């Protein structure tokens, strides 16, 4: 009886599942990417909780990523609130329901528009930035250099960025929501004099805990996937400077799509509940 060589079997299995180059085509490419992203996530999550913890790196990325997007998020939120109010006011006046305007704006901004618009801004700005930065590190072999010295680059390069975006995006959403309500208040005052106290009272009269919790939870997931997808696209970028641009571009597309999918799932879940 022929002796079974475990090493050969393992190598065959390894080859069997290395599908990336050999069998990738237009139809299965997305599924292969998804499978690899799941494996990548598993590795990142494993290394995220292994010491040494990179607290300074996490704080640095959190500050840089938050700081980079804050102004854009504030301006966008403010304009969204202003425009939405100006568009809705005539419709509600027709029904004699203009007193509901602050509440409707608050619910739509907190539940849906604030998180999704901020998520999309962050997908465009943070995910692409992370992808480009990590891809540049990969192209210049900095990640390989970390890998070969046994320094576990996933926890240093990826985990810190993923944690940072997971924390920063919900905070940015809070800013977007707050400034959208400021915009809405100014717009309401174009049509009629309303005190800030009355505006706040009317806004919060329609907002409940059930609006806040799913909205906050989904922004945490938005942040997680924005960081993860950006890092994954950068980490798996090919060789050459061209791949840096490609990684950034595909990160924006994938992160934006993921935000809509997460949003859809949350809306379905909250509708059932």
């Amino acid at each position: 009886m022929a002796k079974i060589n475990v090493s050969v079997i393992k190598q065959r299995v390894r080859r069997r599942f290395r599908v990336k180059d050999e069998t990738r085509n237009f139809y299965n490419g997305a599924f292969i990417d998804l499978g690899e992203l799941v494996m990548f996530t598993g590795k990142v999550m494993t290394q995220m909780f292994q010491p040494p913890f990179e607290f300074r790196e996490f704080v640095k990325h959190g500050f840089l990523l938050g700081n980079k997007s804050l102004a854009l998020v504030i301006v966008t939120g403010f304009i969204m609130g202003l425009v939405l109010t100006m568009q809705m006011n005539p419709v509600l006046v027709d029904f004699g329901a203009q007193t509901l305007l602050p509440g409707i704006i608050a619910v739509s901004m907190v539940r849906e528009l604030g998180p999704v618009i901020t998520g999309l801004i962050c997908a465009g700005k943070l995910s692409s930035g992370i992808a480009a930065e990590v891809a540049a590190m990969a192209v210049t072999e900095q990640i390989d250099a970390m890998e070969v010295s046994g320094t576990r680059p996933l926890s240093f390069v990826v985990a810190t960025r993923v944690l940072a975006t997971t924390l920063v995006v919900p905070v940015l959403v809070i800013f977007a929501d707050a400034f959208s309500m400021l915009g809405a208040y100014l717009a309401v005052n174009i049509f009629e004099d309303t005190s800030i106290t009355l505006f706040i009272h009317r806004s919060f009269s329609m907002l409940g805990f059930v609006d806040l919790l799913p909205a906050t939870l989904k922004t945490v997931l938005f942040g997680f996937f924005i960081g993860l997808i950006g890092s994954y696209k950068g980490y798996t970028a090919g060789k050459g400077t061209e791949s840096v641009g490609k990684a950034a571009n595909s990160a924006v597309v994938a992160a934006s799509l993921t935000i809509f999918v997460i949003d859809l799932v949350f809306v379905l879940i909250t509708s059932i509940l």
Partner: protein
Amino acid sequence: MDNMSPTVSDEVIAVKNVYKSFGDNHILRGINLTLHKGENLGIVGKSGIGKSVLTKCIVRLIEPDAGEIIVLGTDVLECDNSQLNELRKKVGYLFQGGALYDSMSVRENLFFPVRRTRFTDKKHDTEELIEQSLRSVGLLDAIDKMPSELSGGMKKRIALARTLILKPEIILYDEPTTGLDAVTSGEISELILKIREEYDTAAIIITHDMKCAKIATDSIQVMQEGVFTVTGTYDELSRHEDESIRDYFI
């Protein structure tokens, strides 16, 4: 190495029948290589023939399709992640471009592997290690510079210092003199020899620079069509009967 007869127990790297393809491009075709303790082995061959692929397979940056790679008595392809990380600490790798972390200063570049691998937790020891490594490559003055402030040769030296800081037993040099002027190339080649004396390392040196091959290697293997076809010292190969081999040494 000339007067020593290497034995199996001296082997620090043994590559056995390794294959690697990228799609239809068969790069390594059953390649074999042995590196002994204290040996500086040169690899020469045309660009794109698979020299770097081989060294990356040795540290499993690239997964070979088949074969066996034994490094310091450990089967690299059978290691789990933690075993592989432990092994990698003993194998230094000098990349072609240096691969310095451009967001960190020279000091931070050297401190990074020490901190991440917990090579030593004592601050005093770390400072000493950093200074010793920089002194070995003659660049102690550059300790607070950023990589963007360094010349090509300095980057290579700092990258070498970063490799040395974990006191590796083996160093893989991927074209250590590429892109450098003749004087700096000569200095780097001498440095490779000095490092062997100082740190008692064995090394694989991939190079197109024949001056470097002459100075820094004990023996040279010529890679052709995914396998090593000829082995010998610089002097032997430069007088080889086959013109295609001699051409490498012009």
